[in-house]
Each structure stands twice: as structure tokens, then as C-alpha cells.
């Protein structure tokens, strides 16, 4: 069994007479993305501040790699906490410093690196985060999304082993929210840090998370994988997650995987046993490279446009679509068998190649003269009502995926 990187054992915290954390037990594992969800005021930020030592618990123990933080000496505590970076909800950038000065600060103040080495590292990080044009600007001169990127650069410039994100997408529109989440996921994979996020972006945040922690009334009521959370039967899911999903659907027009499953179940219940249905799985290949080439915001806009295009196309033949993962969509074709579905998808692929890619490009606001590398894979799987779990059908569809459209570009940097 893996040793948790961070573990809370019966941690409680009160402010005056208000209990914020009540006997909290949780585990966070190394190299994973763990997301903490919960209503406003449920103690998520307080929990995060306990991890970095900004707040100490009234009761309980916090363990770091199995060792109680409280029993560590000061230098050991410093060593432990220096592996952690924290990205604040409001970014907490130094407003009288430029972007590059903000990013350089932790290196200047906490390392013995030469000025030249610091400048090189800052320049590299600024380049990776697409902030070169604004390196000499002050934070107040930047958009909210750019400020987030500066805060993320500052958090990552010291090469931390753990990064804590306190609501990194607050105040962003749906496209930018997904762009920030996608950016976090990409850098988490690239740099290999352990990420702990607080987020309300259900279900989008599930696509990048390995584990979900649900906090309600100061207690952890769930910890497990996003898939386990989808099966979690608790009033919290109805009160909190449902309302967020409805809001999300209203904004994007695309259903969540959970909603998709619910609607699918309803559809299947109406079918007679052994009546067939088909699931089509669409994957936007090389999505990370696409984001790197066009930027995360544009990447999300493409994803959104593709979702809308799928919905429009398959809605006409009685299908409905949902986002399956970060770069995947599923379409449920309730009144089809495999042969019929193959014909429908072939027609879709032809339309996509003929004018769909241009439509997606236009709807994603990508200029026509900009070429972007873009490939779509599709896989189909047939099943019968009540025969097997829908997740198994998704997996079958994934195995049969093949390319249906691709745009080749010469990537210039």
C-alpha cells in the first residue's frame, strides 16, 4: 500500500466558537491531482492552509510522509514546507512589482542562485507560460487569466514537489476555467508535482483529478476516485454537484458524464431487453500539443465548438452527447445498431472534413489563416439494454477508435 504524502488524522479547527474543521481524516498521495470540493464556507481554504502551515490545527495530527509535522524541528519543518508552493485564490501578486520581478522573488530570496541563473530560469518560465510580451508589465495591467498564469509561474519557478491551488478558476468564464484546469493538468504531467486543488468546477475538474475529497460541514464525507464519486449516493451530490452541473450545461450546452449516464439509464429503461444501442466515442487527439500551439483558452474554445457541432449533428438523429474526459466526447445513439451507426458516423466524418473543421475553427474564433494541428478519432461499440455496464461499453468503443479527420500543420515556434 502506498504511503500517503500528506495525511490528516482527526484534525479539528475552530475560530472563536465556530467549528470549521471537525475531526477531518484525509490522505493525499504523491504525484496525483487531488481536488477538494465543497460548498462556500465549508472550510476548504482553511484545510489547504493547514497543509502549508499557515494555520495550525487545534486538535489532531498532520503527517508529512508519515512523520508528524508538529514533532519536526524548525529546520525540518522549513525543509518540508519549502517543497510546497501555494497559489492563492486572488493570486496575491505583488502589485508594485513587474511580472518578471514577481516570478523572480522566491528565487532571489530563498536560494543562493546567481542573478544570471535567476534571470534564465525566470525567462524560461515566462516563455513556457506565454507571458513574454507582458514580462515588464505590472499585475494590474493584465487580464485575470494572465494574472493566474503569473501566479502559477511564481508557484512553479522554485520547482516545488507539491502545489496547492486555492480556487484557481474563480472569476473566470467557462472557457478560461477549463483552460486553467487544462494548463494545471498539463504542467502537473510535465513537471511531475503533486497538485491539490480547491475547485467548484464540477464536473470539469474531474477530468484532471486522480482523487476527489468532498468537504461538507467541516467533515470529509467522501474521498476516492472521480469514478467512485459519480456512484456516491449522498444528499451532498444532489444539493451541490447537481446545481453546478445544471449551471455548467446552461453555459456550454454539453452534458456532464453523470448527467449523460442518468439520461442513458432512463433511455435504456424504456427499451425492451436485448434491444440494441450504440455508443460513439470521439477523441480530440494531441489536445495538449494543440493547447501549447494555440494557447489553453483557444484549445478550450475548440473543444467547446466541437461539442456543439457533435450535439447539432447527432441530435438530428436522436442521439445525445456528453463530455467524457478532458478531450473526449461520447454520443449515445439509442435507436441504432452498429451498421446503421457506422453509416451515420461515416456521414459525420465526411461532413466534418468538408465543412465541419472550418465551422469549428470559426466558432472557436481561430483566424482562418492560422493552421492548427487537429485530429479526431472515433470508436463505436454496440450493446443491448441491460446487458452490461455503460462504462464497459465506453471502453469497448475506445479500443475500436480510428482517425476520421486530421489537419496537418507545420508548427512554428
Amino acid at each position, binding site marked *: 500500500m502506498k504511503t500517503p504524502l500528506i495525511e490528516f488524522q482527526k484534525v479539528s479547527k475552530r475560530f472563536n466558537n465556530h467549528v470549521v474543521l471537525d475531526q477531518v481524516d484525509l490522505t493525499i498521495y504523491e504525484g496525483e491531482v487531488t481536488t477538494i470540493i465543497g460548498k462556500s464556507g465549508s472550510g476548504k481554504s482553511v484545510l489547504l492552509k493547514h497543509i502549508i502551515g499557515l494555520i495550525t490545527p487545534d486538535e489532531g495530527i498532520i503527517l508529512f510522509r508519515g512523520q508528524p509535522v508538529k514533532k519536526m524541528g524548525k529546520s525540518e519543518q522549513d525543509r518540508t514546507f*519549502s517543497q510546497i508552493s501555494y497559489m492563492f485564490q486572488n493570486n*496575491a501578486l*505583488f502589485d508594485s512589482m513587474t511580472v518578471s520581478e514577481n516570478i523572480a522573488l522566491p528565487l532571489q530570496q530563498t536560494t543562493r542562485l546567481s542573478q544570471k541563473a535567476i534571470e534564465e530560469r525566470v525567462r524560461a518560465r515566462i516563455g513556457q507560460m506565454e507571458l513574454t510580451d507582458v514580462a515588464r508589465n505590472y499585475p494590474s495591467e493584465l487580464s485575470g487569466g494572465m494574472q493566474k498564469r503569473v501566479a502559477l509561474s511564481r508557484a512553479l519557478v*522554485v520547482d516545488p514537489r507539491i502545489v496547492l491551488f486555492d480556487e484557481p478558476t474563480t472569476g473566470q468564464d467557462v472557457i478560461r476555467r477549463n483552460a486553467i484546469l487544462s494548463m494545471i493538468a498539463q504542467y502537473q504531467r510535465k513537471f511531475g508535482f503533486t497538485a491539490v486543488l480547491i475547485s467548484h468546477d464540477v464536473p470539469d475538474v474531474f477530468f484532471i483529478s486522480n482523487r476527489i475529497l468532498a468537504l461538507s460541514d467541516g467533515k470529509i464525507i467522501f474521498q476516492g476516485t472521480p469514478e467512485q464519486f459519480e456512484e456516491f449516493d449522498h444528499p451532498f451530490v444532489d444539493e451541490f454537484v447537481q446545481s453546478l452541473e445544471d449551471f455548467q450545461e446552461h453555459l456550454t450546452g454539453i452534458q456532464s458524464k453523470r448527467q449523460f449516464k442518468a439520461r442513458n439509464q432512463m433511455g435504456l429503461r424504456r427499451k425492451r431487453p436485448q434491444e440494441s444501442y450504440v455508443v460513439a466515442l470521439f477523441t480530440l487527439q494531441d489536445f495538449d500539443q494543440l493547447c501549447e500551439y494555440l494557447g489553453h483558452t483557444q484549445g478550450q474554445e475548440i473543444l467547446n465548438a466541437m461539442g456543439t457541432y457533435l450535439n447539432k449533428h447527432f441530435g438530428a438523429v436522436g442521439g445525445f452527447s456528453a463530455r467524457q474526459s478532458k478531450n473526449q466526447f461520447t454520443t449515445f445513439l439509442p435507436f441504432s445498431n452498429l451498421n446503421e451507426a457506422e453509416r451515420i458516423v461515416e456521414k459525420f466524418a465526411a461532413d466534418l472534413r468538408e465543412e465541419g473543421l472550418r465551422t469549428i475553427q470559426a466558432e472557436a474564433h481561430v483566424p482562418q489563416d492560422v493552421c492548427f494541428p487537429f485530429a479526431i478519432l472515433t470508436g463505436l461499440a454496440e450493446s443491448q439494454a441491460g446487458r452490461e455496464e455503460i462504462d464497459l461499453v465506453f471502453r469497448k468503443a475506445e479500443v475500436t477508435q480510428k482517425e476520421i479527420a486530421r489537419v496537418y500543420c507545420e508548427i512554428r515556434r
Partner: protein
Amino acid sequence: MDKETFFESPVTSLGRTAIRWVNELGAMVLFLLRTFLMIFHPKQFPMIIHQVYFIGARSATIVMLVGLFTGMVLGLQLFHTLVKFGSAGVLGTAVALSLIRELGPVLTAIMITARAGSSMAAEIGIQRISEQIDALDTMRIDPLRYLVSPRIAASIISFPLLTALFDLIGILGGFVTGVMMMGLNAGTYFYRVRTGVDLEDITGGFVKSLVFAVLVSMICCFQGYYTHLRRDSYGAKAVGLSTTSAVVVSCVLILVADYVVTSLLL
């Protein structure tokens, strides 16, 4: 339970206030000790230089202006007073001693409080409420070392230098009114300045300016740093009130400390 008001329970209320003051005083002393020790951290030098520029160099103009007019007023007032006793010749000594022993350190400290002290409190206060200080904590940068310590060091360097500048310009101001306007002999004026002022007077003035430097910088930084703990207000309003408190408390304590130091020196 609601706290009793002064009228409901005067003893409890007074006791509570006294405890709060003692607590605050203790916190200030610890705050000062911690920040003072951090002055000698190897990474402090560039930040101290930056603060010397802000607190010292950029206050020079206003200090010179106030010094000039203070000296001119002193020259006029003392000339008319001394003429009545037939001692107009000692004007130089009177102006120089008044400035070096008393007015120079006090007025310089008050001017720097108004210009730089208020800015220290407001800047640190805003950094506190916008979580910039928490951000420093999370980056393992000690906020006391990074924000407060350079300001205290820079004040200790700048206050005596600005006081010396104030004294010098003030003596010239006395020369303008006493000699150029009232017709006193220039040689007599400077001779009296040179012979009337002892090294002890100058040392005393500098001791005062050092005491004021520590007081002003500590109070202004303390008020800003603990803006979030104010009980009477929050956010931007708290920053405003902390800035006001910083200036008012500093000015009052400058005068109180002036009396204490003077009585110890004399």
C-alpha cells in the same frame, strides 16, 4: 457574551483596556527585537539601500523646506526677543541650539512620519489585506525580514542624516532673517554658532533622532503589519485607520520620547 461597556462596569473595562495595551506593548517589543536582528541578514543590503532612498533621499526636499522656514522664523522671533535684552549678538547660538537640541530632531521626525511613515503603514497594510504577506509566508520568505527590517534599518540611517540636514538649513534660515533682513553682522552670527554649540548638543540631537527613528518605523510598520487584527474595521477601511493611527501615535510618542530623552540628557 457581550462585553460590558465602561459605564456598566468601569473596573472591568479599564482592566481589559490595560491588558490590551500591555499585550500590544509586549507584541511591539518582540516585533522590534525580531526585525532588528534580521537587519544583519545577508540578503538585506539592497533592500535597505532602496528604503534609504525612499525614506531618506526622497524626504530631503521637504525636510530642507521645513528646516529653512523654521530657521527663518526662529531668526525673526529670537532677534526681536534678544534685541529687548540687548543681546542680539547671540542670535546664532540661540538659533543653532534650538535647532540642534530640540527642533531639528522633533520636526524632522514628524515630517518623515507624515511622508514616509504613513506610506509604510499603508503599503504594508495593503499587502496584508491582499494576502501578499501570506504569499511571502508560503514562499518561506519571512515577511518581517523582507518588509519591516529594511525599513527600520533605513530609518536608523536616514533620521540622523536628515536631522543634520534640517539643522544646517535651519541655521542658514536664521542667517537669512537675522543677518540679511535684520542687519546682524554675518561674522558674529557664525562665530556665535561655532562657539555656542558643544559636541554634547550635537550628540544629544542625534541620540534623539535615533530614538525617533526606531519609534516611528516600528509603530508605522506594526500598525500596517497587524491591520487584519483591528477590531474596529476591516479591509480598506482598516488600512486607512491603521495609517491614521500610525501617524498620530508616532507624533505623540515623538513628543513624549523627546521629553524623556531630554530629561535624561540634561
